[in-house]
Structures are given as structure tokens and as C-alpha cells.
């Protein structure tokens, strides 16, 4: 019996092996390569912690770290808010529901570089649609330079990012909403619970796992957000919209500082690992 079980386990591992080897080749090797590169002095050879020491002093890195936190925090919060609202609306028995769901998904389908280009056009202070609409509605007295100024650029980038990213959360939450048994709502209604109470005591607890999953996955995605910012601002003006991903890219491909860029990437990966811990723990517990 024990032999049969061991054989079965071995067969299981054999089935997993190709995927494991592939992961090692496409993820493990580059990660290890970056890690070793981050400890190599720019002059070549040897082992050094110099790049990590420099990171502690690099004000641009600190600014990018702070901006990443703001971008991720605000974007993920807005994704959750907008995603939940749209998911609730699309869960109602509306006419043309499939079409509405498709429309709501569209921003997610568009590659983020394209989203960046579209929003850059929309924000154009000379002939952008956003200023035009707001001026016609009388909400603005003069055109705004959405990607200029001291505070607007990061807000403008986040706004575009919210539009692009909310469908991902929406689709996860919609799936969660559909899994909540109807009977619970009916029972609550019979007991006299109002809409807010039903949302507070049935919907939210029913969505708990989905909320954690979407929060964790969305956070990981947003820390890595690159194309949208690169297409819109390249981290400018100044370093107002510089985030870790654009800075790593710049250090590697524009400044050719492969070792320093690797140290940044390693820190970024560490942060991502920390962020995804709750998700990993939840999945492990379920197993």
C-alpha cells in the first residue's frame, strides 16, 4: 500500500517536472542572474554590497519608492471601489447584461502602453478631449496642463491607471458575487434587512476571499506597472511620476548600469514578495 502511494507521488512529481523546469529556466535563472549581478561591482568581478549602500543614499530611488507606494495604494483602492461598484451593478438582472460586461472589460483588454498613449492625447492641454469637455461643461475656466504642474501629473497617471485596471478587480468580484447563494438575500429580506445591511452582512463576508485575492494580485500588478507611465510621462516632470519600474528600466537600458539596476530590481522583488505573502498564506491554508 505504502509502495503504491510512493509510486503515485513519484508519478505526480514527474508530471510537475516539465512545468518546474520551465519555471526554473524562464524565472529562476533570470532571477538568480539578477541577484548575482546586483552584488557585482560596476568595475566587474568580486562581491560587493556597494549598490545596496548606494540605494540607501539615492534620493531618486527614495522618490520612486514613495511614488510607487502612492500609485499602488491609490490605484488599488480605487480599483477596489470602482470594481466593486461596477460588479454590483453588473450583477443586477439588467437587459443587455452580457454586452455591458463586455464594455466594462474593454479597458482591461487594451495594452497599458496604448492606454498611456490614449490618455496622453486626452490630457493634451492644446487639443485634448478632457479639457474640451470640462470647458464646455463650464467646470474649467482655462485648460489644465494635466501632465504638468506640481501635483497633477501623478494624479493624472493614477486616474488613467484606475480606468485601465478596475475591470480586473470587477471580474473577480463579479464571479464572487455570483457564487453567493440567492437564498441568503431572500432570508435576510424576510427578516427585514435593508439593502445596506444585506451588503454589510452577506455580500462583504461572501466576497472576503475574492477581495483578498484581487487586492493581492492587483497590488503585485500595480507595483510592476510600467508601460502606462513610460508612455505618458517617462517619470517626469522632474521625478514626480518616477516609479520603481521606470527607474529600473532607465538605469538598465538608458544608463547601462546593469548592476545597480539589478540591485533595484532585487529590492523591488523583495517588496513584491512581502506584498504577496497574505495571498500565498491564504492559498497554502486552503490546500
Amino acid at each position: 500500500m505504502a509502495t503504491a502511494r510512493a509510486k503515485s507521488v513519484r508519478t505526480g512529481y514527474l508530471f510537475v517536472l516539465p512545468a518546474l523546469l520551465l519555471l526554473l529556466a524562464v524565472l529562476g535563472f533570470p532571477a538568480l542572474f539578477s541577484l548575482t549581478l546586483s552584488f557585482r561591482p560596476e568595475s566587474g568581478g568580486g562581491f560587493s554590497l556597494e549598490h545596496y549602500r548606494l540605494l540607501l543614499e539615492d534620493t531618486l530611488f527614495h522618490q520612486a519608492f514613495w511614488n510607487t507606494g502612492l500609485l499602488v495604494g491609490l490605484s488599488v483602492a480605487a480599483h477596489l471601489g470602482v470594481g466593486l461598484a461596477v460588479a454590483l451593478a453588473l450583477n443586477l438582472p439588467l437587459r443587455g447584461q452580457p454586452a455591458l460586461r463586455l464594455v466594462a472589460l474593454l479597458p482591461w483588454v487594451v495594452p497599458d502602453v496604448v492606454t498611456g498613449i490614449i490618455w496622453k492625447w486626452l490630457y493634451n492641454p492644446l487639443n485634448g478631449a478632457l479639457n474640451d469637455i470640462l470647458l464646455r461643461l463650464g467646470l474649467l475656466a482655462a485648460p489644465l496642463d494635466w501632465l504638468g504642474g506640481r501635483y497633477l501629473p501623478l494624479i493624472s497617471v493614477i486616474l488613467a491607471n484606475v480606468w485601465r485596471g478596475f475591470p480586473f478587480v470587477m471580474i473577480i468580484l463579479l464571479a464572487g458575487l455570483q457564487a453567493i447563494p440567492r437564498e441568503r438575500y431572500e432570508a435576510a429580506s424576510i427578516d427585514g434587512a435593508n439593502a445596506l445591511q444585506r451588503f454589510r452582512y452577506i455580500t462583504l463576508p461572501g466576497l472576503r476571499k475574492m477581495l483578498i485575492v484581487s487586492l493581492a494580485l492587483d497590488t503585485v500588478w500595480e507595483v510592476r506597472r510600467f508601460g502606462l507611465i513610460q508612455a505618458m510621462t517617462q517619470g517626469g516632470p522632474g521625478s514626480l511620476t518616477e516609479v520603481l519600474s521606470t527607474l529600473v528600466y532607465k538605469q538598465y537600458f538608458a544608463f547601462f548600469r546593469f548592476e545597480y539596476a539589478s540591485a533595484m530590481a532585487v529590492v523591488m522583488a523583495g517588496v513584491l514578495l512581502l506584498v504577496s505573502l497574505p495571498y500565498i498564506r491564504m492559498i497554502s491554508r486552503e490546500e
Partner: protein
Amino acid sequence: MQRRHSLWPMVLTMICVTVLIAAMSAGAQERVTLRFSDWHLTEDVWNKSLTEGMAIFEKRYPNIKVQVEPVSYREKETKYTVESAAGRAPDVMHLHAFSLPSFYEKGYAMDLTSFIEKEGKGFLDAWYPLPLELVKHRGRVHAMPGDYMTMVLVCNTDLLKQAGTDVERFPTTWGGFLDFAKKATTPGQQWGLGMVGAKDPGFSLRFSPFLWTFGGDYLTADLKRSALDTPEAREAFAYFVELSTKHKVVPPGATSANPQDVRTQLAHKKIACEIGSGWTAPIVNKLNPDLKAFDVLRAYPLPVKKKRATAIWLSSWIISPNTKHPQEAWELVKFISSKEMELKWFQDNRVTSARKDVSGVAPEILNDKFAKVIAAELPYGKVEPQIKEWPEIMDAFTGAVQEALTEAKPPDKALADAHARINTILARRR
């Protein structure tokens, strides 16, 4: 018995077919394929011209097939770096002058000296000395010069006339230019100058003339320290920034405007002038044929404060050290940079050449209303420092300009911060 005899013709036929296939495949193997990558392939006007050029090359070299690989202007360094690191870069690549030092340092550009020596003594005499200096690394030639142009003011003469400016007597000083720009500006509708303020490779080409004509510079002569703390640099920086923040003679949104955005503004009469070069008129013409860019636009030397100067645009051709066909790749580079083709590039695209025997003597250039101004400025042309830290320095500097343009920092503070950061970057070099 009969079946045994009938086998021989079949065997013979098979042998013949095999020999024929082997001969054909041997013939096919003789034809090599070269991968040729250039950002110009993404531009309509240039694409047509290069496609025609490659057809001429393939006709002359029937054993070589050229496979073109377009790349975006902004992403070319990224693509070439990744591919070079992986040993899979295109055989022939087109680069900016400022990218060359980094490519030399990383060993991504083949040493061409032996090919040049085989061409015979005096082969390089056809080129201007400055571009030849820029393609050398530790005394060895690692690239061949391509486009060689100076930056000039390109203005819409209709808008100049509307502003009451005599098109034959355009301002020659920055003070005079500011007066003109104010007259050419109608708030909210039209502006005197288009300003590139985005983090874009085209920014330094358009800002540097301000710095240099005011008598300032980015770095000290030994390239070891920032020179942005001089009064001349401060004055140039403040002048540039105040065109937007104080005088408002440039359209809003300068910090996100790249060269193509500004050319679009010129094409649609939103601005009277922009800093451009030979490529400006064809692109503007393509953007808005109704403007009749070749008739309406005119090139002027850049105004001066203390000394006459302008930025030089130089592109160059490199061969990947990983190429399997170095001789064929050299033939292609030699062909692209030949006198005949450099003239074609000018005729089709209005870009002047790094070859003296083209830009200095060709009647097509000397009689062209744009090219003659651009070529006349070559003696005053200057290039950015050719050090591998330059992209990082320029990023820090562009960031400072943007901070001043958005009024996040006063110009003096933004410049002082850039000065300190550049010194930190240069300290690594020391």
C-alpha cells in the same frame, strides 16, 4: 526478371534529383541574409527611401539579402542592448552619436578599423573631422558617420509676417527673438516658439544651443565636473524656462511635448517657430500637406547671446560583433554611407551628410533653402560630451528643466540641484 531491370532508371533518377537538390541548396546557402535595423524605417518618408536603397544594394550584391527591422526611435537602445547582450543583435544598426560611448564600452559595436584599412589610404578623407572623432573609441573606428546636421530655427513665414517681422531680417539675438515671440503669441491660440520639454532624446538637441550661445556649458573642459554653476549657465537656464513661465510665448504642456508634438504644432499653425533641422519640412509636410511646408517654412540660424553655436545631430552605423557575415555587413555600411546614397538620403529626406564631398559641395544641398542654412552652421556646431554617463546626466538635467517649467522649484534651485546631482554622477567616473 523484368522487375529487376526496371529498378535502375529509378535509382538513377533519384541520384540525379538528390544531386540537383544538393546543388540548389548549396546555391541558396551562398546568399546571405543581413538584418538591418533603423528607426527611420518607422517613418513614412524615410521608409520609402530606405526600401529603395536596399533594393539597389540587393541588385548590386545578388548574394546578399537585406532583412529590414524597424525599431522605434525611443526604444532602439533598449532593443539593441538586449539583443546585443543575447548575441542576437541585427547585423547593422543605426544609432545616435550620444549612445555610441555606452555601446563601445559594452563591446556592442564591432571594430571597423581593419575594413577601413583594406579600403585604402584616404578612405576616410571624405568625411568631416568632427564626426570621425566621434566614431572612434581608444583610437579605433567602431562606427561610420551618417546624418550630420545642425539645429536651426524653422519658422512659418506667414506667421512671421503676421507678427510684423521682416522675413529677411529675422532676429539674430535672443533678446530680439523674445520680442518677436511676444508679438507672434496670441494667448490660448498661437505661440511664438514650440518647446520640447519631455524626457526625450530630442530635448538636448533643442536646449543645448541656448546654453552654448549664452556662453555656458554642461561640464568643465576636462569632463570631470558640472559647469552648471556659472552665471552664463544660470542665465541661459532662466531664459529658456521663462519663455514658458514668465513670457508665456510657448504653448502649455511643454514638459510632455516631444519633437513630434512640436512639429504637429508647427504643421497646424499653433506655433510660429521651432528648433529643428533638415528633417522638419518633410515631416511637417506629411503632417499637414495643406500648409505647403516647403514653401511656407524657412530656416534661420539660431539667435546668439555671447557666441555663435548650435547643436549637431550625428547618427552613425554600427555592425554587431556577433554578426556571422562581417564582410557583407561592412559592404552594406559602406553602401549606406557612400556618396551616392548620402545624396539620395538628402534628396529624399533633406538630411545633410557627414561626408564633406556631399554636404560641402553638392549643388543640391548648396541650393536648397533649408540645407544651405544647416550646412552653413556646421562650423559653429558642437556636440554633447561623449561620455557613457551622458544619458544619466541628461536625464538629471531634463528633470531640472521640467521642475523649473512646472514651477515645482525656482530655476536657480532646480539648476543647483541638477549641478549637485551631475557632480555625484561624475564622481563615480573619477
